């Protein structure tokens, strides 16, 4: 009972911060639902269709789990798939859908977006209290688990034509990772992100033991490690990473 008394004021103080953190997470998961659903629509292999729909359902479950964590804190978690950064990310994905480029879709969703999701959820999972932290950590682990199949497809694709594959990754990196880098930058150069409830949550993150720079750093590191796994030369991807906006 004493423990609860101690925690309540702390959570009350930090609830607005968690609300914004959860809003980003829920929106990211909903974007993933949309992306996997779109992917199912262009997949020709029935197994890939089933796989994509299964992933979409899984991401929907993650969004629900994050929303439920908000309710436990007594906060309503907003979402907005049209918030400016998320809209740009969805648009980039839809361009691959329009081109019926299955590989391009996998690169965006599994290599880029999932890298940022897994790494940042892990960091949040380390500092968030109680079930909130557990939920972030558990979802990070689930997200990490389900990319194996996609990685196998991407490795096979790269083996077919290394130059073409690496050029494709670079092209998508320039668009998608630039958006993610801007989203995780210290300040939003273009104004409000259209998702935080009040002012930007980034300066408040240290109150809950996070910083935007460590979220960005951990995500970039995870992304580079994923590219390593695919076999892209480390010196090339390092240069790409250094060229992102700060």
């Amino acid at each position, binding site marked *: 009972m004493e423990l609860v008394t101690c925690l309540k004021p702390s959570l009350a103080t930090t609830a607005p911060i968690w609300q914004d953190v959860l809003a980003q997470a829920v929106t990211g998961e909903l974007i993933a639902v949309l992306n996997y659903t779109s992917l199912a629509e262009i997949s020709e292999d029935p197994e890939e269709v089933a796989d994509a729909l299964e992933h979409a359902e899984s991401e929907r479950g993650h969004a629900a789990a994050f929303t439920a964590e908000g309710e436990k804190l007594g906060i309503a978690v907003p979402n907005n798939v049209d918030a400016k950064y998320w809209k740009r990310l969805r648009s980039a994905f839809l361009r691959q859908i329009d081109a019926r480029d299955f590989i391009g879709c996998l690169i965006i969703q599994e290599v880029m977006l999932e890298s940022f999701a897994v790494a940042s959820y892990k960091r949040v999972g380390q500092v968030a209290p109680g079930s909130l932290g557990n939920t972030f950590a558990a979802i990070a682990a689930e997200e990490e688990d389900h990319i194996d199949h996609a990685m196998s497809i991407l490795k096979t694709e790269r083996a077919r034509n290394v130059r073409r594959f690496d050029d494709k990754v670079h092209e998508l990196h320039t668009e998608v990772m630039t958006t993610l880098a801007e989203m995780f930058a210290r300040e939003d150069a273009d104004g409000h992100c259209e998702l935080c409830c009040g002012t930007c949550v980034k300066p408040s993150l240290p109150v809950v033991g996070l910083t935007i720079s460590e979220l960005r750093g951990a995500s970039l590191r995870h992304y580079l490690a994923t590219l390593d796994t695919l076999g892209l030369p480390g010196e090339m991807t390092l240069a790409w990473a250094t*060229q992102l906006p700060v």
Partner: protein
Amino acid sequence: MPLDFALIAHQESWRAAADVLAVLRGPGRAPIPDVDLKDIFPWFPPRAVCHIDHRSVLGHSVHGVYIDSFIPPDRLGHKYREENIGRVRAAAACAINSGARIVSLGGFSSILLEGDSENLPEKGGTVFTTGNTLTVAFVVQGVRKMCALQGRDMSEATLLIVGATGDVGSGCARCLAPLVHRVVLNARNIDRLRGLAQELSAGGAAVDITTDLQQLSAQADIVICVASLESPSLLLGRLGPNAIICDAGYPKNLSPVDVLEGCTVFFGGLGQSRGGMSFEPDVHRVLHRHPFPNVGQGCLMEGMVLALEGRFEPFSQGRGFITTERVQEIETLAARHGIHLAPLYNAQGPLEEAASRTEGLADERQIAGSGRAV
């Protein structure tokens, strides 16, 4: 293309780190602001930064990579030791995965061999060398050259070695003890100091030991500073006039402005390749921040020398194995491929012309009967 060698190192300052990233970002992008640089840099996983071709004067060349462990320059202290070992291990794994046949370990990275062997990841066909034997060769050559330029008689000199029990320090002690009047060994571990002193004394050298850097430093005519000092003033403020100081540490942080007038500080352990090196992307000026072309750390050049020789072997294996014979062997190999002691310089620029002027001054003083040469 198979790799003959890999070099593992880290940046010595935030300025150097910023310059590396600026080259990678390319000319069209603004440099990363310092505050963001310090946020971003520590998160980069160790990886190759550039490819290097090193040419021998014999006509052939070897190809390798420079791998940065991305140790933040302000986190080189003991507090971050375990974290940094992790980074260097990851860099070593990167070198192994790249198929490099020999790997040189620069700066802090040599801890992979100087510590316990479990620090090394599975090696496959890759061998590792600390590169310290060639560093010792260049330190010793530099000291002898500076003494010659200043007209010093080494046989009358007291040599102080700071960080004497480490791989480079003990190697320098073995090479120079027979050439000087007296050696003062400084390090933190008294037992290791006693062991080294006993070894040198058995060879006929006059040896003193101290764990207190300030205790005997005023008596030194020549100082080799192998340890990168956190408080250089502890040493420099105590030295007598006209001391020669070789800064053989990494990062190099002994400044000529901190010493008494008449003292000479120079950077030691550096070699220069007459065959030349090329870098892709061209980070040469950033990685090798020297006033002369084709200059590099001896420890890194050792791997290139061995690759040029086709000797893919762990030539320098860590603490205490560097002997005079091994130093002579590696400097002979280096010379065969056109790798020699770099021109002497310090943080203020080239020194050899200045040293020659001091030599002339020494001659004048001796002629005037002022006693010992400066």
